[in-house]
């Protein structure tokens, strides 16, 4: 199985095709709805002024996300009292909610992709082509297993968004995922959607 070490190069991303399983190692950040909206409004479209401390977080995001990934995940975290954070359960969340933001975010930070579940739409697929980047599908619900690949939690940003929505900086080792959208404009999700539509039409033709 192909192992990817973060930061991943553009050349390596171009070598990946849909259906290929990979193991990821390196530093990435979790982010879901609130984080994406905040990044887009504050630093990409700049429709909102940064709050106190936001610029420092932005600098940190730029440093980490270049060549790296955002993981769509709202983890269960132990050690909230002592700040000795540890991921207890950390499977992927549904990615399509980030469709309005993701292509912009990937391009803005020079990311190599996102990890989530359920796949994403045409805008993100186009973003994968241009950036270049890939969409990696993790196994939904495999939370204890994936948490074991999170070796260290090195920090957290915007904890005021709540534990699930905060941006957790994590160091992962051999995080398992499958490429389901590649940088060549292909999405495994589209193929399965089309086929299931055809079968449904056949089923509807029966009484």
């Amino acid at each position, binding site marked *: 199985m192909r192992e990817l070490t973060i930061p991943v190069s553009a050349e390596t991303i171009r070598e990946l095709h849909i259906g290929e*399983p990979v193991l990821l190692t390196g530093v990435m950040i979790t982010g879901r709805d609130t984080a994406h909206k905040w990044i887009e409004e504050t630093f990409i479209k700049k429709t909102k002024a940064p709050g106190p401390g936001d610029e420092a977080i932005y600098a940190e995001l730029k440093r980490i996300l270049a060549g790296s990934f955002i993981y769509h995940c709202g*983890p269960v975290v132990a050690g909230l009292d002592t700040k000795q954070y540890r991921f207890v359960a950390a499977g992927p969340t549904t990615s399509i909610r980030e469709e309005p933001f993701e292509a912009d975010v990937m391009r803005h930070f020079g990311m190599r992709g996102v990890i989530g579940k359920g796949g994403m739409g045409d805008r993100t697929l186009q973003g994968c082509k241009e950036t270049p980047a890939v969409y990696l599908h993790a196994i*939904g619900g495999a939370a204890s297993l994936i948490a074991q690949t999170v070796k260290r939690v090195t920090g957290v940003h915007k904890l005021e968004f709540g534990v699930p929505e905060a941006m957790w900086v994590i160091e992962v080792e051999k995080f398992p995922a499958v490429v389901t959208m590649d940088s060549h404009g292909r999405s495994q*999700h589209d193929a399965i959607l089309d086929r299931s539509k055809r079968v449904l039409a056949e089923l509807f033709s029966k009484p």
Partner: protein
Amino acid sequence: MQPDITDKVLELIKRTSTDIPPDVEASLRKAMGDEDKGSAAQGALETILSNIELSRKNGTPICQDTGTPIFRVRHPGGWSTRKMREQIRTAIAQATKLSYMRPNAVDSITEKNSGNNLGGEEFPTIHFEEEEGDSLVVDLMLKGGGCENVGAQYSLPDESIGAGRDLAGVRRAVLDAVQKAQGLGCAPGILGVSIGGDRGSGYVASKAALYTPIGTRNAAPEVAAMEERITKEANSMGIGPMGFGGRTTVIDTKIVGMHRLPASYFVTISYMCWAYRRRRLILEGDRVEYK
């Protein structure tokens, strides 16, 4: 004398979040055998089964989305539901502190997460029913947001899918919902379907249908046959585990009928993800049992 059930409910929450009922695990294992060797679908099911074993061994949540806790409490006459509600809420907050549950209750107006899984009267959801006898039976289901989001309600007739007000129309509505869900509900899923009711009671009944074990069939033969037909036809769409493509998209379909207004005919589908977390606590005097 009504006992304090806080500790028993805490244990129920732990078992529900960190383990999966044997019937569900057996179905997933069978599904793994049915998929092609080395396929993404089989790989996904292998990962799912390893995750179940690991969660059980380590006492960690099967899924990080510990979901909406939905309790059904059947209690002897004379018990105070106010006290039981307080005890259940205390147990939920403790379970959150112990990382069996993720803080999951977000105020929709202020966007603030309460931090302890408590939020208003409806979070957690608790249904109380007084029953004959001396035993207390508490069913708990944890239903995550991914699968909750792909649930659907159809008002029949629905011309867009050619569905009229009969079982044939129900079939169309359910198959349409499964096709639209793709892998987003963390397939393979289990379908709870209610026919009738109003929009609110329809959803409650479609979820309550999910308290029964896999393979529980409706008592009416024509409905039971339709449950099996829908499962089979849904699987022919090839969506597969996680939407990776494959043979198992739906593990089981459960249909319940309700009374309705003459003017309304709702078909309500609650989609449960493979992480079908349901457990039962039975309390009879000093005897405590978890099933």
